[in-house]
Every structure is written in structure tokens, then in C-alpha cells.
């Protein structure tokens, strides 16, 4: 049940109709049922895995709270970490490590080990595992009070709008919204939700899916099939595909949640207007980057132990962040590129944190965008070799072709108005500025978005990229 499918919107309509007729406790129970139904539509068997995660962390947090003994508290938080990361490791990384293990066996001249079974990756496992982990760690750190009701906690873990692809919520932000009665959905809240849902659908259906058409062609091409300019176009197309895809999903999740009185955290804030890597990670997948900062970078020592250790921590955090995305070396390299870049940029940023004027900022934006694109090549490529081959193709003669002219025209047509809109929001420094404008402008903007959704959706809907993580 994808957010860009009719089934989802029908499901949501039923959920909203029932939800707003119930009191707070019943709302929670109903939302939990709806969330399990939503997840079960992919594969009902993995509901048992969510239930296990939920039950174990609920119990672990209660044990942590109940004990004044530091050793017992540490034991339970460690148990939570081992169990959660163990489950994630088994389902997500077993195949990866098996392949690498067999590679070592090959080098040693030994026979491959075949386990005789194949594990399916449960959708959204990386997201809800991190959300569950943040809860037990926060309880251990004393930042969150353990949840009293199991069903409330179960809803916190499996709240359907953000269950399969985030934003990864923190217990101190989402849990109180689950436990306490939520505000009635006012007209203003409904409008905010509508704005986010429409922009989210636009990003996904109009931008991401149409860019996927161009990007897939380039990334699936055989070496030598394309000239340098065509490859560059494909890389740009993927940069906007993944942005539209993921930012679109997040916007829909946040918008839909608003219609139920929930306030989820912002996950994207015009990331391609970032002028350096640090700023990029303050705008891209914010819920993950802040999670990595709070639960990995800072515990590793953060910037408290000197420059070199800070750089090591940055690289390590980003490499693990890369591995979080998927079990493949390409993701590790993607993380490493960002880690090294952040480490190199750090002293530079320390010298001039505010940038050096408009020209320097513009240059920063262009350079940052292209380095981000370099990372995307590894992120999207099937293998390290394929990524290198694609990057080498950039050196192939640049010439105009039908694909190139069509691609440029389509990018201008689909991305031009959106980037102009983002530029305007950036200038206003307000992501919801449109809501404050006079109604004729709003109607025009919504009408434009709706007609683009209607007439220019890609012929074949593309699955959300982040569902596979």
C-alpha cells in the first residue's frame, strides 16, 4: 500500500472517518489496528517481528526504570541494543556477510557455505528498529519516562504514516503525543496537512517518478553506450529522483499525521540549497542525521577529544550511516565519501562558519550539489565497478543527442517550477510560506500541482526507494 496508490488513500479515508469519531484511548487502539493492517498488507508474517521488538523494548525499558542499580540498568539497555541490532543484522546483513564470508572461503580454496534458506528484508525494519532503540537509550539516559501502556508504546513503534520510511521519531517527541489527548484538527491544521500532502505527492509522482525514467536508463546502461553529457544528466536526474522520492514520502507522512493531530518532525529542508556538507546533513534526512549524531557520534566522543578523533568519529558515523541504508559496499563508500568530506570541511567551517558573501555561497551550493551527486553515483550503482565505470563515462566525448535534449527539456519542465518555488521558500526562510499568501495565489499553486499530478504522472509508478531500507 504505497502512498501514491489509490488503496492507501481509500484506507486513509476510512481511518480518518472512524478516527475522528472516537475518544483518545479508542483512537490509539484503532490507530494501532490500522497500523498493523497497513504493515500486514506487505507481509503479515513480519508483524510478529514488530510485536517482538515492541514487547522486548517495552519490557527492557520497564526493567531499566525499575532498577536503581547501574549494572542492571546497563544490562537491560545492552540487551535491548544487542537484540534490536541482532534482529536488524540477521534480516538485513546476513546475506551481505554470507557473500563476503564465501569470498574469503574462495580465497582459501574452500567450498562455499550455503545455508539452504533465504531471508526476506522486512519493509521498514531499519526505521522502526532505530525508533525503538532511541526509546530504550533515552529511558536509560533518563530523558524519557517509560511508557505505562503497552498499546500506546506499540502505536509509537508502528504508527503507520511513518512506519516504513520515517521520519525516525524520538520517544520524547512522539510518545507524549500518543499518551495524551491530541488537539482537534482545526481548519488551519487541515490546511497545513493538505499543503504537505500535495507537495509530497508532487515531489514523488511528478518529480521523482519522471526523473527515475531518465536515471534508470543511464544507471542501467552498459559501459560505452552513453556519452559524458548523457551520464551527467542521468546523475542529476537520480539526485532529484531520490530527493523527490524521499522528501515526498516524508511530506506525505507528516501531512497525513497532521490530519490526525500528530506533529512529526521535519525531515527535509531544501537540501540542494546547502552550501557545505554540514549544512547538507542539517537539511537532508534530518531525523536520521540527528539520530546518528545523538546515539552514535556523541557517544563515540563527538568533538570532545581533539581534532583527529573528531574526524575519525565523523567518518565512522557516516560509514555506519551508509551501512544503515543497505547491505552493500556501495553504501559503505557513499557513507565514507560523506564522512571524509565532513572531516575535511570541518576546519574550513571553523574559520568561516557564516560563509563569505553571496558569490561564495552560490559557489558552495554548486560544489556541494556536485559532491552530493558523486555520492549518489555509488548509492545508486549496482556495484563499485559499475559506479567507477559510470564516472569514467563522464570523460567520454560530450555531444548533443536526442536523449540529452529530451532530458534537458524534461528536467526544465518538471524541476524548473519546483526549484523556483524552493528558491522562494529559501529566501523567505519558511517552508510553509505559501499558506500565508492570498487565496488566489494558493488556488493557482494547488491547481498547478493537481494538474501536474493528473497529467504528468510517470506512466509506471515507481516504488519508494527508501522502502527497501
Amino acid at each position, binding site marked *: 500500500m504505497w502512498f501514491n496508490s*489509490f*488503496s492507501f488513500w481509500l484506507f486513509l479515508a476510512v481511518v480518518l472517518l472512524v478516527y475522528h469519531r472516537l475518544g483518545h484511548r479508542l483512537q490509539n487502539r484503532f490507530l494501532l489496528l490500522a497500523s498493523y493492517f497497513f504493515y500486514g498488507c506487505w507481509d503479515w508474517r513480519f508483524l510478529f517481528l514488530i510485536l517482538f521488538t515492541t514487547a522486548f523494548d517495552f519490557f527492557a525499558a520497564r526493567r531499566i526504570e525499575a532498577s536503581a542499580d547501574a549494572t542492571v540498568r546497563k544490562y537491560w539497555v545492552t540487551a535491548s541494543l544487542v537484540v534490536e541490532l541482532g534482529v536488524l543484522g540477521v534480516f538485513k546483513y546476513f546475506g551481505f556477510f554470507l557473500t563476503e564470508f564465501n569470498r574469503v572461503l574462495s580465497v582459501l580454496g574452500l567450498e562455499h557455505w550455503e545455508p539452504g534458506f533465504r531471508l526476506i528484508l522486512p519493509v521498514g525494519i531499519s526505521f522502526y528498529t532505530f525508533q525503538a532503540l532511541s526509546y530504550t537509550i533515552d529511558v536509560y539516559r533518563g530523558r524519557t519516562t517509560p511508557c505505562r501502556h503497552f498499546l500506546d508504546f506499540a502505536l509509537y513503534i508502528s504508527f503507520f504514516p511513518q512506519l516504513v520510511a520515517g521520519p525516525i521519531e524520538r520517544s520524547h517527541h512522539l510518545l507524549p503525543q500518543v499518551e495524551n489527548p491530541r488537539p482537534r484538527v482545526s481548519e488551519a491544521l487541515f490546511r497545513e496537512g493538505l499543503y504537505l500532502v500535495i507537495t509530497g505527492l508532487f515531489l514523488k509522482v511528478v518529480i521523482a517518478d519522471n526523473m527515475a525514467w531518465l536515471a534508470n536508463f543511464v544507471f542501467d546502461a552498459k559501459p560505452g553506450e552513453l556519452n559524458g553529457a548523457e551520464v551527467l544528466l542521468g546523475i542529476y536526474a537520480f539526485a532529484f529522483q531520490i530527493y523527490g522520492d524521499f522528501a515526498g514520502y516524508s511530506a506525505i507522512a507528516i501531512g497525513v499525521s497532521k490530519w490526525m493531530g500528530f506533529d512529526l518532525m521535519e525531515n527535509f529542508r531544501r537540501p540542494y540549497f546547502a552550501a557545505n556538507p554540514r549544512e547538507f546533513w542539517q537539511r537532508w534526512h534530518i531525523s536520521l542525521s540527528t539520530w546518528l549524531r545523538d546515539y552514535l557520534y556523541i557517544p563515540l566522543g563527538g568533538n570532545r577529544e581533539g581534532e583527529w578523533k573528531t574526524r575519525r568519529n565523523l567518518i565512522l558515523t557516516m560509514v555506519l550511516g551508509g551501512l544503515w541504508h543497505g547491505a552493500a559496499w556501495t553504501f559503505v563508500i557513499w557513507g565514507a565519501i560523506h564522512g571524509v568530506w565532513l572531516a575535511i570541511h570541518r576546519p574550513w567551517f571553523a574559520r568561516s562558519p557564516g560563509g563569505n558573501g553571496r558569490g561564495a555561497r552560490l559557489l558552495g551550493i554548486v560544489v556541494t550539489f556536485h559532491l552530493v551527486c558523486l555520492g549518489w553515483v555509488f548509492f545508486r550503482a549496482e556495484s563499485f565497478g559499475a559506479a567507477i565505470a559510470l564516472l569514467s563515462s563522464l570523460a567520454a566525448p560530450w555531444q548533443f*543527442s536526442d536523449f540529452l*535534449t*529530451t532530458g534537458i527539456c524534461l528536467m526544465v519542465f518538471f524541476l524548473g517550477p519546483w526549484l523556483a518555488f524552493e528558491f522562494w521558500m529559501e529566501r523567505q526562510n519558511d517552508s510553509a510560506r505559501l499558506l500565508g499568501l492570498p487565496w*488566489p495565489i494558493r*488556488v493557482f499553486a494547488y491547481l498547478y500541482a493537481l494538474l501536474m499530478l*493528473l*497529467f504528468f504522472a510517470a506512466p509506471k509508478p515507481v516504488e519508494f526507494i527508501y522502502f527497501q531500507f
Partner: protein
Amino acid sequence: MVSLVVALTALEAVSRVVEPRLSADVRQMLAQNEIADRVREAKNEDRASILVIGNSLARASILPDEIAVAIDSTEGKPPEVLYITPDASGINEWAAAYRKAFAPDLGVELPDLIIIVAGPWHLVDHAVSSPEKLSAYHVSSRDRLDVAWNWFSDIGARCRFALAGVSRLFANRERVQPLLFYGWVPGYEVTAQRLNQTSSLRAEDRSGRDEPASVRPADTTSRLELLLDSLGVEPEQVLIAAVPLPEHYKLPESVVSVARARGINVFTEAAEKEWPASAFPDGYHMSSEAGRAFSRELENFIRSRQNGGYQPSR
């Protein structure tokens, strides 16, 4: 919100006005609404009528002047040859469209000869390729609920079917992009063909050239049975003809047995023999010359089976 709804309603009204200009396919589907009137007018003029049901393959291969002589006309008046042949259609669209125009309970005049022209898989049950087209142009209001309930396997398709029933803007939404891009984006046609071909090849490579079961045609013929049972004419007034394609083939046994069980003739000889490659200039549809030859073979077949041709039923 209200302004948005008003604007969308205005656009819907505009879309209904410009609808016939969208494509020849749309004009053709809209013309289906007048087909029963044209049969009635032919009867009033003591002329026979021949209805050809199929898709673009039928249009290319059944030439009206050739097929018209298959029927003995009254007082030398040529029969009216009518077509229900929407592009990219199959048994779903044909059954729905025929029932919309000639359902038995409508009490309308029926054609004197009905020729159903199909390729190897058009007559067996398969998923509806475009719920929007089916809803907006082919299904009658009487059949709408039954079709929505029984002809689709997923909710998404049912929603599209329902929405297209009330909005032409929605039903024709996929026609706007090609209209704009083919005309205005340089190199779009070549690029679109290249990209779509590559993506299908890659998809085939990935799936090991195995078609998923959901898109493979079934061996059942429930829609064909629905169409045949809705025709309302004598079995000898109906003919199923297999249209020649670049590769010769036989109609599925299930189709032939369903037709024969109802006493309906099936003409497969032309499709079972080899045709020269020049008969299919675009690799799929027959040239007018080849279509003429096929129409003649069909005409001979009809005459041989009817001992002197069909008589207008009136």
C-alpha cells in the same frame, strides 16, 4: 478549498468540450454511442448492417467495401459496415461496448452480421488494460456496478474505474503528456521509444524472461461467453475471425470450443498460414493490400457457410 473545487469543475467542463479533439481513438469511442442509431437507420432504409468488433488490427484488415459484398443486400443497396474497434482493446472492451449499444433489454435493432476479429489472446480472459477507458467510453450504466465488482482484482483499478466514470479530465489524463511532449520536446519520440524498449529489456532480463502470472492471459473465456450470450442474434449471423499476424498461430482451443458450442463459425485459416513480411509494413498491422486479400478470404468463407449470403433479419 471551495475555489479549488470550482476551478476543477470548470476544467472538467472544458475537458468535455475539447474531448473529441484529443485523439482519433477518442472520436472513435465517442462514435460508438451512435452505432445503434446507425443500425436502426440502415434498417429503415432497407439496408443490411455489418458490425465489425475488434481493435486496430480489425480496422486494418477488414475493408468495408470488400466485406460489404459478403452480404446480399436488398434492392442493390450496399450494407452499412460499422466498427467497434477502439485502439489497444480486447474482449473486455468489446463485451462492454456491445452490451452498451445492443444489450437485449434495450430493444434496439441488431446488426445482420457480426464479425469479431481477434488475435491469439484477445478473446481469452485477461486483466483490464485501461480501467479509465473502459469506464468512460465502453461500459453502460447498467453494467457499471457488476464490472466494478467482478472485473478487477485490485482496489486501485476499481478506484480508477470509478473516478473515470465521473470525470473525463481523469479518464483522459494520460493523453495530455504525449500530446504536449511529442509536439514540443525535441527528440522525445525517439527517446521515449529507446528508453521504454531498454527498460522492458532490462525488466525481462531481471525476471529471467518469465512473465508474471498476473499478466499472462488465462485459459478461461468468461468475457467472451458474456459477449456471445449478449449478441441477441442467431448463431449463423456471427463469425469469429482470427486476424493474420506476422507469425502464424491458432486460436486457443478454449475460444474455438466456446464458439462452436454456440453454433458460431470460426474462421482461422488465414491466421494459420504464412503471410509475406511485406503484408505487415509496421510489423503488426496489415497493409491495405493484404487487408483486401484477407477481407476477400473472409467474404468467401461467409458465402460458403451461408449458401448465398446473409439475409437482412427484417
